[in-house]
């Protein structure tokens, strides 16, 4: 069954232009997208795929923006599993045979998992200056090496300076790891699932996506506020959401039957 939501149909003038997959939704919610003129919904049993014409001539940025925008809009209307950008099919029917038919059960389960939930992405960056001040004041080894360096002044050998620098780098890395763990451990209990983690690299010490029930969005937000306060100036917490559940669209949620 194919239902064409908008004015632009599956055939006709659009000719050879392929269709780009936007994501998967429940077939009985297909009507929720009826106001999105350019979106076509094709169903197979209980699940359906949302597609849009892909116009390469529009350019990369415009197509990416369109993809992000349409995924956001469908997600706002109903439970939705967003597709990664760039999955093209020649005919809407291809998506039924290659995607929907073989994965009906998995998609139904996943759609139930993301129903009423949003992705919130949290990134934590170490603020080097503040973190340096903290480790220099609290790490006994660094305190001693600094004292030795101060006594020797310009005479301090390179070996000693390297030892101090290595110690500082290690202390900063340990602090980053501890801060990442603090953020994960604080937020995880308020969420349904977590993807990603840390520590990452450079000043980015954590990049994680949380699946948050809308009923707990305020509690999650307040927890982020408390983390910002607790981390002081040594780490910057950047939380963005609600987002469509990009990180939760693959069947990896912990499921009882999988145990």
């Amino acid at each position, binding site marked *: 069954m194919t239902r064409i939501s908008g004015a632009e149909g599956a055939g006709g003038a659009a000719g050879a232009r392929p269709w780009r*997959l936007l*994501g*998967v939704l429940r077939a009985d919610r297909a009507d929720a997208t009826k106001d999105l003129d350019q979106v076509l919904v094709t169903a197979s049993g209980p699940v359906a795929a949302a597609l849009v014409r892909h116009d390469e001539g529009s*350019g*990369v*940025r*415009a197509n990416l*923006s369109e993809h*992000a925008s349409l*995924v956001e809009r469908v997600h706002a209307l109903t439970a939705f*599993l*967003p*597709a*990664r*950008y*760039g*999955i*093209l*099919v020649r005919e809407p029917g*291809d998506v039924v045979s*290659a995607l929907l038919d073989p994965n009906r059960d998995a998609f139904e389960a996943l759609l139930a998992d993301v129903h009423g939930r949003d*992705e919130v*992405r949290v990134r934590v*960056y*170490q*603020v*080097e*200056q503040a973190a*340096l*001040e903290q480790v*220099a004041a609290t790490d006994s080894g660094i305190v001693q090496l600094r004292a030795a*360096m101060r006594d020797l002044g310009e005479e301090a050998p390179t070996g000693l*300076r*390297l030892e*101090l*620098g290595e110690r*500082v*780098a290690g202390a900063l890395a340990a602090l980053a790891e501890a801060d990442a763990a603090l953020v994960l451990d604080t937020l995880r209990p308020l969420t349904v699932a977590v*993807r990603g983690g840390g520590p990452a*690299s*450079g*000043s*980015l010490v954590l990049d994680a*996506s949380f699946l948050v029930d809308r009923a707990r*969005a305020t509690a*999650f*937000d307040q927890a982020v*506020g408390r983390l*910002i306060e607790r981390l002081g*100036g040594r780490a*910057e*917490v*950047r*939380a*963005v*959401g609600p*987002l469509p559940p*990009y*990180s939760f*669209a693959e069947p990896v949620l912990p499921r009882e039957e999988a145990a």
Partner: protein
Amino acid sequence: MTVGTATQRAPGRYVTSPSPGSLAEVVDLILDKGLVIDVFVRVSLVGIELLTIDARIVVASVDTYLRFAEAVGRLDLDRRRGPGLPDLIEQVGSKGKGVAAGGVARAVGKTLKGALVGDGDDDEQEQDEASERGRGHDADQRG
């Protein structure tokens, strides 16, 4: 520069909402996450693959250690805002650009920027955002 152009934080809220239509916060999600069907051909576009590069950086260089030693050596913890600190901030701000971590991250940011340039004339905020990812320690990002 604040993130206000690409995200909106309501008063009293800590989780910021992405601005509608802004790619800054979601571009890597769109390209790296979400449903994938291997049998279908991904759009092959010059520049896009660069966006998925794992920008892992080796920080353990002698230069970095020496810079940390110098920076921490000049910290004046006894006089919290003593005359040494502004010097240090200035030094970290300028010299830091040569450090492996910040340098490479910025370079990647520029590459991301390049990949999106040319398709629209309102790219400015996304470009800034992409660059800023590499220097998350800028406290003034949170407008």
